[in-house]
């Protein structure tokens, strides 16, 4: 028995020795940095099989290739202590900047930022950078509500086409929306989508249902089917699986997608999709670090920075003239003529919103703390306030939430 244990240990040591000399991509036994070149670490919740993480991984590779930075990408890191351990290992491996992609990573990134003050930590979709007051901890998001608004415009045009062709009446222009959680990011997303649709089709209404998960293919499909059976004539979603788009393709209901094009799987129903391109942010943060400048506490990517993207319009499913209209609205958003959350375009309980205190500074009582209405519009994702969305009015007039998973 003892001999055997000794043998096992000896074997392990032999293998450990070889580990020092060889290894894929020269990563064997690299402790500490020496060559001076920047190394960037990326922590991803899942791997490239998730559309959400693929979007990040592609951006990480693109940005690092362009800047000549070595990328170390860690996939399948859960939102727990593993995130901290991974961040610490990336520091050991000599990374000067570390990015994480999932909301639940935030607290563990903050913990790592406190423990490793010489390394920069950047967290996408998080909410706490502006209140933590750490020099090396940063949040980033994009004005994706503008992308959603544009996608909504395409949806509204499709509804108009259906009304004109006599397929539905004006009152039947009901949109269905599959959301993940009743979280501000989702609420802001479906509200801007709806406002975009209503700007084209004034009689549009919308029903929203929630799945209580960011990725649950079966639940998303079921939710889309439920909305279709409730006479919704167009579906959009904010969740990461192919559940809703495939349900739409099967039922022949037009779909406005998210995170990227689903045209390949849904050639007859896919209209257009909005997504965040993280490449501009990654480049901006790494460039600033290399130049010795401070990285933004809250970075908000916009249409202008190329962070908010629309896929190509699928001519087969979209209404005629969609692309031209989108270009026009996009220009108006970019030059500031048009604001997505213009308070003159929506009401809450029949009243116009003159003032709204949003919960911008995260605390456990969800205290509304900051005035968000400025110059007649709700100032969503303002770099001065916070990059992550804070529009959290669940149902403006015209939107009905179905089964709320609080």
């Amino acid at each position: 028995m003892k001999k055997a244990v000794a043998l096992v240990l000896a074997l392990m040591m032999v293998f450990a020795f070889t580990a020092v000399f060889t290894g894929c991509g020269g990563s064997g036994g690299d402790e500490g940095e020496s060559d001076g070149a920047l190394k960037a670490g990326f922590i991803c919740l899942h791997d490239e099989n998730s559309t959400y993480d693929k979007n990040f991984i592609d951006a990480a590779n693109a940005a690092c290739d362009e800047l000549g930075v070595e990328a170390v990408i860690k996939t399948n890191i859960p939102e727990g202590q593993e995130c901290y351990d991974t961040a610490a290992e990336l520091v050991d491996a000599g990374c000067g900047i570390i990015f994480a992609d999932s909301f639940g990573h935030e607290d563990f990134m903050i913990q790592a930022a406190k423990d490793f003050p010489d390394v920069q930590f950047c967290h996408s979709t998080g909410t706490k950078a502006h209140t933590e007051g750490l020099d090396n901890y940063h949040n980033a998001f994009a004005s994706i509500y503008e992308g959603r608004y544009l996608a909504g415009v395409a949806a509204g045009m499709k509804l108009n086409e259906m009304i004109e062709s006599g397929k539905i009446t004006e009152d039947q222009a009901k949109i269905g929306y599959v959301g993940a959680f009743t979280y501000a990011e989702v609420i802001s997303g479906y509200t801007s989508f709806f406002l975009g649709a209503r700007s084209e089709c004034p009689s549009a209404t919308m029903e929203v249902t929630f799945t209580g998960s960011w990725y649950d293919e079966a639940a998303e499909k079921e939710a889309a089917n439920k909305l279709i059976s409730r006479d919704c004539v167009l579906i959009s979603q904010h969740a990461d699986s192919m559940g809703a788009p495939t349900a739409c393709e099967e039922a022949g209901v037009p779909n406005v997608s998210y995170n990227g094009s689903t045209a390949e799987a849904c050639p007859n129903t896919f209209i257009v999709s909005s997504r965040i391109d993280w490449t501009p942010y990654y480049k901006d943060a790494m460039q600033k670090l290399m130049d010795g400048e401070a990285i933004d506490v809250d970075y908000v990517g916009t249409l202008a920075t190329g962070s908010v993207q629309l896929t190509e319009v699928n001519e087969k499913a979209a209404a005629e003239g969609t692309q031209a209209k989108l270009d026009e609205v996009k220009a108006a958003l970019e030059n500031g003529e048009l604001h997505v959350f213009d308070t003159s375009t929506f009401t809450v309980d029949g009243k116009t919103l003159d003032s709204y205190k949003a919960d911008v500074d995260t605390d456990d009582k969800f205290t509304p703390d900051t005035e968000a209405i400025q110059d007649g519009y709700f100032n969503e994702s303002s770099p001065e306030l916070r990059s992550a969305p804070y529009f959290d009015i669940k149902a403006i007039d015209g939107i009905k939430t179905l089964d709320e998973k609080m």
Partner: protein
Amino acid sequence: MSKQIKEPFLHITKRKEMPARRAWAIRISAIVAALIVCAIVTTLTTGLDPIAVYSAMIDGAVGSSRKVLVLFKELAFLLCISLALTPAFKMKFWNLGGEGQVLIGAWATSVVMIYLGGVLPNGLLILVMLIAAIGAGAVWAMIPAFFKAKWGTNETLFTLMMNYVAIQLVAYFIILWENPKGSGHVGIINQSGREGWLPYIGTNSYLFIIIFVAIITIGMHVYLKYSKHGYEISVVGESQRTANYVGIKVDRVIIRTLLLSGAICGFTGWMMVSGTDHTITTSLAGGRGFLGIMVSWLAQFNSIAMVFAALLLVFLEQGAGEISTSCGLNQSFGDILTGIILFFIIGCEFFINYIVHVRKSSGKEEA
């Protein structure tokens, strides 16, 4: 014509006790064979140098002092759950509820941490958390044990279903505690004041966890091997009738043993919330409640052997992550390699316990 009984081509008989040295020789050759098969699979499917993949794996598991510490922390968690399940298994009580018992311990810890954090002094708070976690885990395991002892219900299903009850309960409380609202995340509890956190040694408390589990390992070894309770457990496991005959109160042993089993699971939950993660999610136990079953069986309920069985599994898991990073392979590839290695290891136990006889006179009588 041939009246004699036809001998099958293969037949299997149980071996008598095999000398330990030989058994270990078989196990080691199984691991070597597994590594060779893995190497062939790697080369054929990915075209990579298998030695490079192996060394990436080793680097991922033990490549730096931090990685070694993390490896031992992960080992401690898996081992602790395996140890918790062992007395129940030894008694032939199929406790498949480790996952739920850990989670409910973590839940109880979180309840105390959230509602009494800042109210009680830190030392007392940690103690109350500990008692709550052990109590909750013990109760969670005792419920199916009580039903089994009183009414003979099926413990396999009962303990399994209790996992889902625990998961749903935790899911409910996550929504109650979530921050920010609607996000479905609790986040780190008491991050600013660290109320209810185990003290740090350096930048974490992993060392405490490793020490706690080392103590439990030795304790469990002594308990099962040298105590009266341990003896009663093995008698009940061998035959309940014998146990009854010699005057062991089987009902009491079942309930007592499951209380212990659940208490240690609850303790693991406490270590996870107070010692490492400082948060609660439905996947906090991370499948270790089930993996622990395999560790316990692989080690044939021997507490010391369990250290090595758990080490192997944790080593493979930690190493698999590195493959995806440095070799550009998907994490699933690491899982495939782990699967092959486990297949060989579990398979070799068969050859240690049984002899396969091949018919010698094949093709002689009936062609």
